[in-house]
């Protein structure tokens, strides 16, 4: 593949490859259009998840996280990833090990048993970060301007997710924490409007092991977010994280079910990963962005149909 010099190791994590593979597909397709080379990280594992596994044993979390990073270090490139959870984990692991000599020593003693060594040569980048800082809004705008005959013109509810922006210390958003705008900027390049809605920056409820252990609690967050998003009359929810994505997509079905008596009407708001939206704006086909369902498969996402969006923008579904 021709490259513009930008080359990353693509870290998949768990939810994307094993539950939401269309996020992988759409991201690879869109990055291809910008001639960014994405190399597979063979043998990568769970990041491991920052809420659960870190909550069980911090040292194990550091060791396994470091192993994932060593795969990219061996490839000699930085890591690109699509998940806020993986971002939180690997960013924090990388930062800790670069600055804490003792922890690094501990980690490398364990890694030695599988013939690996953490060096600290790779950077951890979220695809939103790469889009915003490396490709840049200007370049994306140039690609989207003539991508479609009719601009998308949707009203969108952007969901940032927590680990994308917090804690602020080691993240590239120039102290944007309480009221960030960078994701909205990116989304609005597609020709859509990014809505303000109540508690826009609130957590989706999935993280920290809460979804795993206390599903009702986690879905109550989601219910509140969905109510606020509905109040703002959004056409779709835009995510930058597969776990938030799952929580809104599958979670919507679950909320409609368990909070039947609490909600005024069942929710049905399409959920899109942001690379899918950018792809659409660039004139890419719904098919190559993974937005067409397989007629044969049951029990696979999207659980909340995205078809209304495709219909609305005049894409054949």
């Amino acid at each position, binding site marked *: 593949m021709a490259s513009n010099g930008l080359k990353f190791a693509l870290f*998949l994590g*768990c*939810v994307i*490859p*094993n*539950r939401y*593979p*269309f996020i*992988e*597909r759409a991201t690879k397709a869109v990055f291809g259009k910008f001639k960014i080379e994405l190399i*597979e*990280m*063979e*043998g*990568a*594992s*769970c990041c*491991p*998840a*920052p*809420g*659960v*596994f*870190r*909550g*069980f*044993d*911090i*040292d*194990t979390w550091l*060791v*396994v996280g470091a*192993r994932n990073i060593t795969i990219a270090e061996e490839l000699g490139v930085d890591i690109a990833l699509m998940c806020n959870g993986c971002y939180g984990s690997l960013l924090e692991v990388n930062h800790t090990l670069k600055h804490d000599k003792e922890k690094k020593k501990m980690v490398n003693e*364990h*890694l030695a*048993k*599988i013939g690996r060594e953490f060096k600290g040569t790779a950077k951890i980048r979220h695809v939103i970060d790469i889009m915003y800082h490396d490709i840049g809004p200007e370049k994306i705008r140039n690609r989207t301007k003539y991508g479609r005959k009719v601009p998308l013109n949707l009203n969108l509810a952007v969901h940032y997710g*927590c*680990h994308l922006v*917090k*804690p*602020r210390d080691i993240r590239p958003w120039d102290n944007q924490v309480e009221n960030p705008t960078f994701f909205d900027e990116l989304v609005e390049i597609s020709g859509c409007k990014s809505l303000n809605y109540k*508690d826009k920056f*609130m*957590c989706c*409820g*999935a*993280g*920290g*092991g*809460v979804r*795993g*252990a*206390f599903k009702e*609690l986690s879905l109550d*967050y989601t219910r509140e977010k969905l109510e606020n998003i509905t109040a703002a009359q959004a056409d779709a929810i835009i995510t930058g994280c597969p776990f938030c994505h799952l929580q809104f997509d599958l979670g919507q079905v679950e909320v409609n079910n368990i909070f039947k008596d609490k909600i005024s009407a069942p929710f049905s708001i399409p959920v899109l990963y942001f690379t899918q939206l950018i792809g659409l704006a660039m004139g890419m086909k719904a098919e190559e962005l*993974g937005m067409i369902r*397989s007629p044969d*498969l049951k029990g*696979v996402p999207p659980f909340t149909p995205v078809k209304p969006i495709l219909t609305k923008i005049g894409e054949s579904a």
Partner: protein
Amino acid sequence: MEIIKTNKITKISDDLSNLLRDAGYLELSACIQCGTCSGGCPSGRRTAYRTRSLMKKVQLGLKEEVLSDKELWFCSTCYTCYERCPRGVPVTDVIIYLRNLAVQEGYMQAPHLALCKMFYDTGHGVPINDNFSQLRKHHKLSDLPPTTHQFPKAAKEIQTLLKSTEFDKLTGVGDYEKKEDKKGG
């Protein structure tokens, strides 16, 4: 209705706060109970979980009460409190560290144990299955992702590491499976 009940504090100890101090969380001792953490907590808005109270219990050393309470696992690690705490207490990190201590004491939620088993067995917290392999193929991707799923040697590496850090022993997976009864939260 029960009239007589008491939750009198009869002992204050440094044990728990010293564990946190040793781990580097000195700021916790400077918490002034302002309530910024619990005031902005999305979990606390719908449960009885109070981050602020948790911090006080740690300061006073109510160890058993803190570690055994399943509310410790109500935090969705959104880092809102961490960002806003005026005393610079890394609240979320403190909670995560407390969870480590809880796990060491054997307090864990059953679904989390299942997660550990999957992690040990496959290298993924959320592993693939046939249905999703089909979905991958539908999206023109390899049926197994190029992760530990595709590379058994890599999956073995994960197990070696989990043994090396004694994560298997801690959570009762692998060789330790079912050999130990875990207390539910």
